[in-house]
């Protein structure tokens, strides 16, 4: 009924304008008729363009994730599954910046649009509190949905832990990303260096390169990358944002020391680093401008691409240098089934297939920067051949820390990102900066 509403308007208008006893010429009435026609057509177009309740033969699953090379690879895999399982799978891969809004809008309004959503650990708190996700506990133990050789135990515990909220598993961990140190092996050898392991090593090498005119490429833009770097360096310094009691403790000496290190390292950074996110750092490495840099493991496939990279085969990969103990940062993405999905079991079947050893192996071989949570694949020789960084990245699975996941954590990370940007760009005093953030946010934790 509501759809007919737009049709009333042109009718009313034409009646109104012809209300005056018209001395109208033929031109007038022609114009008037054309106008009415135009408006009616518009209204019809609007009504027509609504989706009919086309009964789809079979089930259609819609998957929501961010767009990019990984999505392109995934699309092929999904087409394979669709053929095998006899369902239609639609991949809705959109701009990362809009992903959370779209998922939230649909899940909140219970539109049933999405059957599978790609969720990072950062959003789990919000999604679980709002009740958007279905519990997978019953599904993972059902061999009819998972297949007989799925091997649930092969999925790294650390991943399952991240996505278990209040004892209930809400998503299947899928993709691991971690910051890595990348360096040009020839450039390092020329300077007589080995791959840096400690902070002191790193500073020495960075300084050497800076004096020669380049420097280390760092993602020091005000944003999430710089806080990721802080998190991994903190872990490597045996510290964390919080003290053992769980309270915010940014003024600990270890934290101040870490920020001071970041500031010093920033002085030897490649020109422009202060405005770079992961992507620009990766490009600086890829096209040979940077002899060394800290980049994200999800991007490094481009570095070894023979067609696109100027330095394919010349690079070495190492964990981020540490001060007290080796550490890594674990960032992850997982598949969850929304509570409003109309095909929960089918979706879970798809998720289980995606996280099966066969599918993950295929994914890693097609996209070497794709690292999964399957322990058995971490030492797969075929994958390792294409992904020289595999060993380094696996560290994240074994002794990786995650960013704080508490509900107020985003505020902390945002404030730190701003503060760090001030420290590395304007030379602000690290201790003072940390004190400032501590004072303003301590009460929230």
């Amino acid at each position: 009924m509501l759809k007919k509403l737009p049709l009333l308007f042109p009718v009313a208008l034409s009646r109104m304008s012809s209300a005056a006893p018209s001395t109208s010429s033929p031109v007038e009435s022609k114009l008037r008729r054309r106008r009415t026609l135009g408006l009616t057509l518009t209204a019809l177009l609007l009504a027509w363009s609504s989706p009919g309740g086309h009964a789809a033969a079979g089930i259609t699953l819609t998957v929501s994730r961010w767009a990019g090379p990984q999505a392109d690879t995934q699309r092929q895999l999904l087409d394979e599954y669709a053929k095998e399982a006899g369902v239609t799978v639609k991949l809705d891969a959109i701009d990362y910046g809009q992903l959370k809004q779209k998922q939230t809008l649909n899940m909140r309004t219970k539109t049933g649009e999405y059957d599978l959503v790609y969720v990072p650990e950062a959003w789990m708190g919000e999604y679980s509190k709002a009740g958007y996700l279905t519990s997978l506990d019953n599904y993972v133990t059902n061999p009819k949905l998972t297949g007989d050789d799925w091997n649930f135990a092969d999925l790294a515990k650390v991943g399952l832990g991240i996505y278990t909220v209040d004892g209930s598993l809400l998503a299947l961990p899928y993709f691991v990303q971690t910051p890595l140190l990348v360096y040009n092996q020839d450039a390092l050898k020329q300077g007589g260096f080995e791959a840096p392991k400690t902070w002191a090593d790193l500073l020495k090498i960075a300084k050497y390169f800076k004096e020669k005119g380049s420097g280390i490429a760092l993602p020091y833009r005000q944003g999430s990358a710089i806080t990721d770097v802080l998190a991994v360096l903190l872990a490597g310094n045996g510290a964390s944002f919080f003290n053992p009691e769980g309270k915010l403790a940014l003024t600990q000496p270890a934290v101040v020391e870490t920020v001071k290190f970041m500031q010093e390292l920033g002085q030897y950074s490649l020109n422009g680093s202060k405005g770079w996110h992961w992507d620009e750092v990766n490009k600086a490495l890829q096209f040979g401008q940077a002899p060394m840099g800290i980049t994200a493991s999800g991007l490094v496939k481009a570095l070894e691409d023979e067609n696109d990279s100027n330095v394919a085969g010349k690079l070495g990969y190492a964990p981020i240098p540490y001060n007290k103990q080796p550490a890594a940062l674990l960032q992850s993405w997982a598949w969850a089934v929304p509570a409003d999905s109309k095909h929960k079991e089918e979706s879970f079947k798809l998720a289980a297939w995606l996280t099966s050893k066969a599918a993950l192996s295929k994914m890693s071989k097609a996209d070497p920067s794709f690292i999964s949570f399957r322990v058995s694949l971490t030492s797969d020789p075929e994958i390792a051949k294409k992904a020289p960084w595999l060993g380094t990245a696996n560290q994240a699975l074994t002794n990786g820390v995650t960013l704080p996941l508490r509900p107020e954590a985003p505020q902390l990370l945002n404030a730190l990102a701003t503060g760090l940007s001030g420290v590395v760009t304007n030379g602000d005093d690290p201790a003072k900066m940390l004190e400032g953030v501590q004072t303003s946010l301590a009460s929230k934790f």
Partner: protein
Amino acid sequence: MGIMTITAAPSSAFQTPKVRAIHRDQRLAILLLLPAAMTIFLVMIVPLGFALYASLFDYSLGQENNMSFVFLDNYLRFFADPVAFRSLINTVVFTLLSLSLGLSLGLGIAVLLKRINPATANVLRAIFAMPLLISPIIVGLVWRYIYDPTYGLAYYLLRFVGLQNFGGLTSSATALLCIVVADVWHTTPFIILVASAGLTMIPDELYEAARIDGASSFHMLFRITIPLLAKVLTVLILVRGTDAFRIFDLVYGLTGGGPANATTSLSVFAYKQAFENNKMGFAMATSVITLVCLVVLFGPFMRNSARKGKEI
């Protein structure tokens, strides 16, 4: 049948034809107005009401069932937050710079275009309109590329004049200025287009008469062009000013608000609060404050433009 044909209205108790005509007129006007007014009301005014309401609560998007009433706390937080204050300053500075640069450049070009032969002017005007037609995402992208110290065209040129240490987007002092430049590039076409349309509505006879009287170009610009463009100018200031005040895509794409919040505008601040910090209520309060600022800053222009309609 026109109203004007009735000059001697019979003074009688029942409705005169003139009164009936006026009523019919009013009905027509309301009908003409209705679709636009209804659209605006439903799509914009109602959400505004909701935003006002929501700004009194503390909640995250999607958690409307868990809203906790905090009354004016969000507003107090805004005024106590140094980052919020900084973003307000940044926004005002940005708006002033972008508006003044854009207007002078745009008007100047529009006037100059009128002086050359129409055929060339049309081609040039179409070329000048191009920046506006490009998606804001791409505008942010290409200017980020241009401003990049290692790869960018800007720095390539600066190296020739020895200014390669220019802070650009990575220095708190110059980042905002760089964004202004990108914004002026992107929005001057709008000003040129509207000003050109307005200029063509000024009769050439006025300029002829002035020239015969011996007026100089400058004279004509300030005595004829600008006053007659007054209403168009008002609209330009209103539209461009309010747009500049709410700048988002360009800032977010070029610097993400940095370095150290040197370029965070009010809308970037609100966005971060809403979608990164999950504080929707606070974001709504910021938006309401933005709206109040806009009304205060641009309200006076609005009053001039909305004078009571003249009886025709």
